[in-house]
């Protein structure tokens, strides 16, 4: 998560209420690129952090409609143009009979693109044989707010700010000293 060249202050929280308050405070304090890790979804957290609503709705809707279009055109082309057969005296373009497969093709492409757009493009995730989080507790019951130091927010100031948010534990991650960073209890 952390870009190597930056220093970070990590605040671990057990209490979701304190964590959410800290996220709001971090956004209000004007921090940039802060990362919030949660073991389960917290509704409205993206608003507290100033994130925009996910954009994946429209592309998925487009793919769904495109799938339906492809499905219909496939049937029309095969049944009317490529190899027309008279079946039960029906017209070659017997579109009501094509509705079900049109619908299913739309659903299929919509569902597949929903999964792939979400994971690969929006979240930029890839399956890996090794994924290390800052702490394994982050998929259990602990929340993490990680704030990077920058020109406006120095490391000591951020550390003091983080302690003011009442986390259970504060950790500083400094590029060269990353391995030596000792947890200090607030």
């Amino acid at each position, binding site marked *: 998560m952390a870009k190597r060249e930056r220093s970070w202050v990590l605040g671990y929280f057990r209490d979701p*209420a304190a964590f959410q308050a800290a996220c709001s405070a971090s956004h209000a304090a004007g921090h940039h690129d802060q990362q919030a890790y949660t*073991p389960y979804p917290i509704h409205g957290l993206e608003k507290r952090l100033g*994130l925009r609503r996910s954009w994946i709705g429209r592309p998925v809707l487009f793919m769904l409609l495109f799938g339906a279009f492809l499905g219909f055109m496939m049937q029309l082309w095969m049944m009317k143009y490529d190899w027309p057969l008279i*079946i039960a005296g029906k017209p070659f373009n017997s579109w009501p009979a094509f509705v079900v497969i049109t619908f299913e093709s739309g659903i299929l492409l919509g569902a597949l693109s929903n999964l792939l757009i979400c994971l690969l493009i929006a979240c930029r995730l890839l399956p890996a044989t090794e994924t290390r989080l800052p702490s394994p507790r*982050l998929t*259990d019951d602990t929340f993490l707010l990680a704030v990077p130091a920058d020109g406006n927010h120095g490391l000591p100031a951020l550390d003091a700010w983080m302690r003011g948010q009442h986390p259970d534990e504060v950790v500083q991650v400094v590029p060269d000293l990353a391995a030596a960073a000792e947890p200090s209890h607030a």
Partner: protein
Amino acid sequence: MRPTLAELENPITLIHHSVRSRDVTKDVTAPIFRAPNLTWWGGLLISLLMLMSMWLTFAVQMCEGIGILGLNKPVMWGSYITNFVFWIGIGHAGTLISAILFLFRQRWRTSINRSAEAMTIFAVATAGLFPLIHTGRPWLDFWLFPYPNDRGPLWPQFRSPLMWDVFAISTYGTTSVIFWYLGLIPDFATVRDRCTNKFQRMAYSLAAFGWRGTAKDWNHYERAYAQFAWISTPLVLSVHSTVSFDFAVAKVPGWHTTIFPPYFVAGAIFGGFGMVVFLLAPMRSMLKLEKYITINHLELCNKIILATSMIVGYAYTMEFVAAWFSESPWERNQFIYRMTGGHAWVFWTMFLCNVVSPQFFWSKRVRRSLMAMFIISIFVNIGMWFERANIFMLSLERDHITANWRMWVGTKFDWIVVVGSFGWFMFLFLLFCRTMPTVAIAEIKAVLSDPAGTGSGDHGGHGSHGHGSDAGKESPAHG
């Protein structure tokens, strides 16, 4: 003071207020790391024997031909299509729980959605065997799909409902699997971070798709999950409608009615919830998940069984009214035959199991008794199988050509496959119980009343009236 089991499985809130986030992690992942118990091994052995006998029958069928089954004029659709429609129907409850209850913000679904979705996938996997094997030459099943071929190219016949089925079932299977997988990703990450074995950790890492759980990831993930619910809702209603077109489009007496799509969907949800109760009542004690899959959850499933039982009961009655109203002697004869003919026991088994036996659920004591609901769920499953048999076989036995009229008589191979399909389904479900989180860990943490044990939670706040049935409509957290 530690709460007793009776308190844990009858909570006033959705889940007992003493349950913390870390308890969920520990309890749900425990079966993955624990050596399986004797119940599991016993179940696996029995289901393995059942499914092996089914595969053996398929092998015999490939050598001898489809004639080993009880198919003959005029009943050319016998036990295989009955199994197919029965199992596709079973799958519907899972999608209903995962998609439709999500859209209605029913937070109680979080305890049962994972296992119900697994049930859907295994039911579709079971159902899918039958159209593939019934062709007699399953190695040529790819002919079902349109692909550029050297026969013209000659294309499938898209005006046939059987072709619609190919697309509906394969889309349903695919969509169910990826919806289920999306839900599993954060939970695979939880398992990954608990693994001590290197290879286990690698496997769960791959399955978790590099999941980190940052606010940005959750933001997209929650949107995608909601979109899946929107995509799956029309899908689940359409799949069994499409299956019913196989029959409703044909002119066989008893099939050619417009009531079929809703009738089939209601029956599917009814049978599916029967299977949910049948699986979850033993599973929760086998995996020690009583505090997550509480009696309240099972009671809500039983209420749905009762409601859908009355819908199918209404449909059965309406079929008779429609036959009488049609003035068609064929239709009228068909329904008199169903009630009084040589296979009347099929009809009455269906009626007793599907319409009469769920009526016991009017009693709250029965709805909350594990033994009673388990027995009724078995009746529901039997009833649903015979409902399909009643529609397909009995109609074909009395078609429009009186000279053809004859009864369907199943051979031993028919019945081995019926039993074996349950073995195949149970086998897959038992493997799932050992290798994947059977309860949606991340979703259930979001509905705990006091996840961190800070005491700041809203004890008894939601759902304190009733048993969690209408809990959480006001809550911001997704269920």
